């Protein structure tokens, strides 16, 4: 029970610090779950993101469900997910009730323009540490470049990239195993 409460509060804090979608959650997750608590490894986080991208639902929510389930089973998954959406519920309800035109206040616009700059830097940092674990040889570098560049310039569903990358991973590893036997 105590750990469930902790899980809820932890993910509420993570949700409250996620400015701008699932990728913005990555630096906070790395800090809290990888560095501080050692609950997951950098690799597992990358795996959860990949699955979160190609399954229904919002990546931030999917990642929270994954980590909660890993810690405390089904109930943990539910609690972590409720935690991650809790700040949104509170904040948006307040805005809907009292703050007509909230996003038009100059102070809000300036503050969040500043925060967005910080999110860029934090995400860049998070990508660098993820990269070190994920891009480990030439084939993975090629997958990274193809998917990254493709996502910027082409309008293809993330599902396709994930399926293709998974299949590519299997083929590459099979070829490697085969090459290894011959040599």
């Amino acid at each position, binding site marked *: 029970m105590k750990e469930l409460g902790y899980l809820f509060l932890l993910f509420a804090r993570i949700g409250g610090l996620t400015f701008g979608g699932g990728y913005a959650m990555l630096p906070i997750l790395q800090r809290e779950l990888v560095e501080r608590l050692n609950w997951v490894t950098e690799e597992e986080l*990358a795996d959860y993101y990949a699955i979160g991208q190609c399954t229904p639902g919002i990546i931030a*929510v999917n990642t929270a469900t994954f980590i909660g389930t890993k810690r405390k089973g089904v109930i943990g998954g539910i609690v972590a997910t409720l935690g991650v959406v809790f700040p949104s519920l509170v904040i948006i309800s307040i805005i809907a009730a009292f703050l007509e035109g909230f996003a038009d206040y100059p102070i809000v616009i300036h*503050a969040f323009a500043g925060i*967005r700059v910080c999110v860029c830097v934090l995400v*860049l940092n998070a*990508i660098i540490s*993820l990269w070190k674990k994920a891009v480990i040889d030439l084939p993975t570098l090629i997958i990274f470049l193809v998917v990254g560049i493709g996502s910027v310039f082409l309008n293809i569903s993330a599902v396709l990239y994930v399926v293709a990358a*998974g299949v590519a991973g299997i083929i590459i590893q099979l070829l490697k195993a085969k090459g290894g036997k011959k040599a």
Partner: protein
Amino acid sequence: MIFLQLFYEFFKTGLFAIGGGLATLPFLSQMAEKTGWMTQADIANMVAISESTPGPLGVNMATYVGYTTGGLTGIPFGNILGAVIATLGLIAPSIIIIIIIFKILQIFKDNKYVKAAFYGLRPASTGMIAAAGISVVEISLFHLGLLDSNGFAGIFNWPAIILAVVLYLLIKFLPKINKKLNFHPVVYLALSAVVGIILQFE
């Protein structure tokens, strides 16, 4: 019963919107036309609010629509009930699907094909996050819209770029000077908000 309908509509959005908050947009747009719970302008406002609050866009939208729609019923706390129900509807499919996937992965995690698939998935995942990061960089550090009017030099948002470089150096080198200086990201987020307000970032 409006609350059941709220749950059902957002459940559908959660079930079919694959790949993050912006993927919910087309579904919300359809919902607006079908139910009249919100206008297209409300959705555009919500995108702005979601850029100006923590939390994923899809969740924020569900909460907002649930709150306003539930409020119209006249039931005491109908607005909060609506917000909770719509949000639960949105996240219910994720919870069910991810728990199932997790259980399946537990069984097959040592399978060599699953391992090989993840070997390919990790760089793809990193690539997709990098691509999402690039779009924030585009909005935050550059004025690409000014390319024509001001020439090439006009596209750089210099104050933002300088702030980004300073933040990067602080995050990178402060922990090397002293381990105690390895600040939580929230410190840098707050600092940036203050700088944004003082220097009137747009």
